[in-house]
């Protein structure tokens, strides 16, 4: 595709109808809670939008985020939008390698200074030797790439909050992008992996309105992460009735009852899984019979066991409670003995006086 081609040109070349495109714009606009008239404006702006330069940095990650986006489902407008961006640098997807790849990144930074987007997946190890690309540490590459960026979009929980690399004992001393980059707008699109529509939704809004979406206190777009999965879950009525699956193969599990007791983290997880769903709206983890693991939340890997319910306390072993009971009883007995001795001594004094 030519560098100056618009998104409209791309859609036309792929045979996407105007109706399908407007449908996409309406869906995206409503999902992002934009005003009703925005869909048309979004369609016009998107059609005319030039390819934005994007540098995608992959650090301590598993490539699951890229996989989720590129292999989400049959070719859709979301994936076309992803194809549309000028992905000037992406370890996994770029054809170039070695010096040519690094040169492409530097050239993109220089040519689009102040305008390009940096998309990051993966956390950054503060022990810099733990992860390097072309001999450059992740931290140095992130700082250099963000220096003249318009904004940073963290794709996945690892980039947003550290994710699995940050889990105890965090051997690489991994941190999130926001722990290093402080002077750029940062949008977190967490998830393990994040929902493709959340990624493209943020990019679409940036392309059409030229501004970033409204974010929650954890830097996530409210449109996708503003609602509790438990509140949106189709199994919620079973929770309200007190009908729970006790194991993964009991009657409750077969009847599709609530997975709360099997460790579902939906009550403390905020994401769009329950209403947008995955694979073109086919299903999501809870629908396929497994509890939510709360992957869009900071520190989700250390939130307690995957199969421990959210109401479970973290006590370690009961030894401390046993020791406390013994100590309490010993202190009580000691206090009583002291008091009796004091009383006996007082009586002794009384009898001596008489």
């Amino acid at each position, binding site marked *: 595709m030519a560098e100056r081609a618009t998104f409209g040109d791309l859609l036309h070349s792929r045979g996407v109808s105007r109706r399908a495109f407007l449908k996409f714009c309406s869906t995206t606009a409503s999902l992002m809670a934009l005003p009703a008239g925005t869909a048309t404006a979004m369609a016009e702006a998107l059609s005319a939008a030039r390819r934005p330069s994007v540098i995608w940095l992959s650090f301590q990650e598993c490539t699951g985020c890229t996989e989720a986006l590129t292999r989400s489902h049959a070719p859709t407008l979301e994936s076309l939008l992803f194809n549309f961006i000028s992905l000037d640098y992406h370890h996994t997807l770029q054809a170039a390698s070695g010096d040519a790849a690094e040169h492409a990144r530097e050239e993109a930074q220089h040519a689009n200074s102040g305008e390009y987007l940096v998309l990051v997946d993966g956390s950054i190890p503060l022990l810099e030797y733990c992860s390097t690309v072309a001999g450059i540490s992740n931290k140095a590459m992130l700082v250099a790439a963000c220096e003249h960026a318009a904004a940073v979009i963290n794709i996945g929980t690892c980039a947003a909050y550290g994710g699995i690399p940050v889990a105890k004992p965090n051997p690489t001393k991994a941190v999130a992008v926001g722990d290093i980059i402080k002077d750029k707008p940062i949008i977190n699109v967490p998830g393990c992996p994040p929902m493709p529509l959340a990624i493209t939704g943020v990019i679409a809004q940036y392309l059409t309105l030229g501004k970033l979406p409204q974010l929650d206190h954890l830097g996530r777009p409210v449109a996708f992460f503003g609602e509790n999965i438990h509140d949106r879950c189709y199994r919620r009525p079973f929770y309200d009735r007190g009908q729970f699956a006790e194991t993964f193969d009991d009657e409750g599990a077969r009847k599709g009852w609530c997975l709360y*007791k099997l460790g579902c983290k939906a009550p403390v997880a905020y994401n769009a899984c329950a209403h947008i769903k995955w694979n073109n709206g086919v299903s999501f983890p809870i629908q396929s019979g497994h509890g939510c693991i709360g992957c869009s939340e900071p520190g989700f890997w250390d939130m307690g066991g995957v199969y421990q319910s959210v*109401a479970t*306390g973290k006590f370690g072993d009961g030894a401390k409670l046993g020791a406390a009971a013994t100590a*309490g009883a010993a*202190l*009580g007995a000691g206090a009583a003995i002291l008091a009796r001795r004091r009383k006996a001594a007082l009586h002794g004094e009384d009898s001596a006086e008489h």
Partner: protein
Amino acid sequence: MSLLDFARGPAIHASLIILVAGILLRLVGVLALTRGADLSRPRDAFGNFKGYRTVFSRFWPSSEFTTATIYQTAMAYVFHLAALLVVVGIVPHIEFITSLTGFSWPGLPNWLGVAMGTLALGSLIALIIRRLSHPAVYNSTVGDYITWAIVALPLVTGLMAFAHVGPRYETMLALHILSAALLFAYMPFSKLMHAFWFIFSRAQSGLAYAHKGVRI
């Protein structure tokens, strides 16, 4: 560490240690202070039996006092029974107790749990209203009001967490656990120890009266 992690981990753990150590400290500390033997001849041959019977006979005031005490007695019963059902009947509570003890049992449907929580809170409010409107009867101290607030907080935060009122659910859940932790840590050193003392104090009163031949 998030607020919820703190509440579910160190806070509730420390409060349980204080609860267990505190209850045993007070129980052993007081019970080991045995009274000296009463050398007088008992006027009732069944004194011991009647003393222990008092533990049960005082579950309801004597009929002479019905008019004066029916309101607070009924409200106290509603509160205690509803609070007990909430503590041991709601599924998240059972999950918590199971994680601590390994024991588990079927939970109440949520609608019943919410009804019990609301009843418990309502009766608690009814009791404080009486206390406030009859200062001469109760002769309340600041500690009484603090105790009331510490008992009411877990009910308020629990109902709010369930209804998703106020802050986000995980914050409300953390506040609920922290309020329970406060209750646990406060319990052994306050009037809330009546949960244990009522048995011993009733038995002691019964024994003393029976020894003197007083019919109770």
